[in-house]
């Protein structure tokens, strides 16, 4: 890719990242993704521009507030994320990335806002654990892998593609994103989607 990959990390990725460090994990998908994006890296050869909206920062702060972190700690964390967006290769401003959630018919207004942010900021990839709520009739879907979870049992992960106007966006689980990165895939949405579809056909998922 000859430009920075625009990456939107959903709130659950940031929360999962803090949780992983809290519980002594090392090298999880969320830890790797947050670390890479904060260092403006994407895989071996690409740079990354983080995308986040004011609304999402607000939700992230709310999660931390509910866990009774001090306001200083919360502001320091969210402030550093804002700086990563501002001083990224495309120098974006989270306060100027507007939603427009009414454009998307989704059951959850918050998720519609996240999708609208990704589309509005021309993200290439939206990384989230919460794929279910991003699956709408406007998205193409491909099954990628099956994982076993304690609370939901067997869960089939999917990759989704939204082509809206000039925007072309892939929505994917962090496990898949890490796998594609290891395999050296090009994250240009159209190219990535072709490869994902081909993989689905080969492995019969």
């Amino acid at each position, binding site marked *: 890719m000859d430009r920075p990959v625009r990456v939107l990390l*959903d*709130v*659950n*990725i940031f*929360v*999962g*990242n*803090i*949780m*992983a*460090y*809290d*519980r*002594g*994990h090392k090298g*999880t*998908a*969320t830890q790797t993704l*947050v*670390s890479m994006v*904060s*260092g*403006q890296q994407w895989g071996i050869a690409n740079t990354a521009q983080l995308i986040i909206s004011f609304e999402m920062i*607000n*939700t*992230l702060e*709310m*999660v*931390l507030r*509910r*866990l*009774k*972190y001090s306001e200083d*700690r919360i502001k*320091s*964390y969210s*402030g*550093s*994320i804002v*700086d*990563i967006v*501002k*001083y*990224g290769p495309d*120098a974006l401003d989270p306060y100027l990335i507007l939603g427009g959630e009414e454009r998307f018919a989704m059951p*959850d207004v*918050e998720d519609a806002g996240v999708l609208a942010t990704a589309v509005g900021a021309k993200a290439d990839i939206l990384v*989230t*654990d*919460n794929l279910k709520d991003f699956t709408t009739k406007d998205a193409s879907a491909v099954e990628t892998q099956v*994982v*076993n*979870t*304690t*609370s*939901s049992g067997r*869960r089939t992960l999917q990759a989704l593609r939204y082509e809206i106007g000039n925007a072309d966006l892939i929505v994917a689980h*962090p*496990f898949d994103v890490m796998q594609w990165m290891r395999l050296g895939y090009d994250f240009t949405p159209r190219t990535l989607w072709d490869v994902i579809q081909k993989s689905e056909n080969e492995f019969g998922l």
Partner: protein
Amino acid sequence: MSSTVSANVDGKTATKLKMVASMENRSVSNAVSSAITVFVGLPKGVRDFLLELNAQNDQETIIRLGREMMAAAARVRLEKATNDLAAEHRFGGREHAGSEIDLLEEATALSRAAARRK
């Protein structure tokens, strides 16, 4: 114990200094004090390079370097903020370590619950 130091600067630098102090709602004396603190804390190589760029009036490199320093500072700031949050073990600490997918589902549940409470 504090000491008073004095320095001579050219008119252009003095004007810039007043502008920075005004933009950041500080006194000129406070801005100078911060500048000295930062300067003496930087490695000599960095100080020399910054002074060299300034002497050459290489604005393009100064701006590029400033952006790269801010990007690096943001990354380090995020690492520190994450470690500070994690050190409080409000997510339960090592006793709650489970599989990565379970951790992610828990993170999703917490995020959704917070979004609904807004």
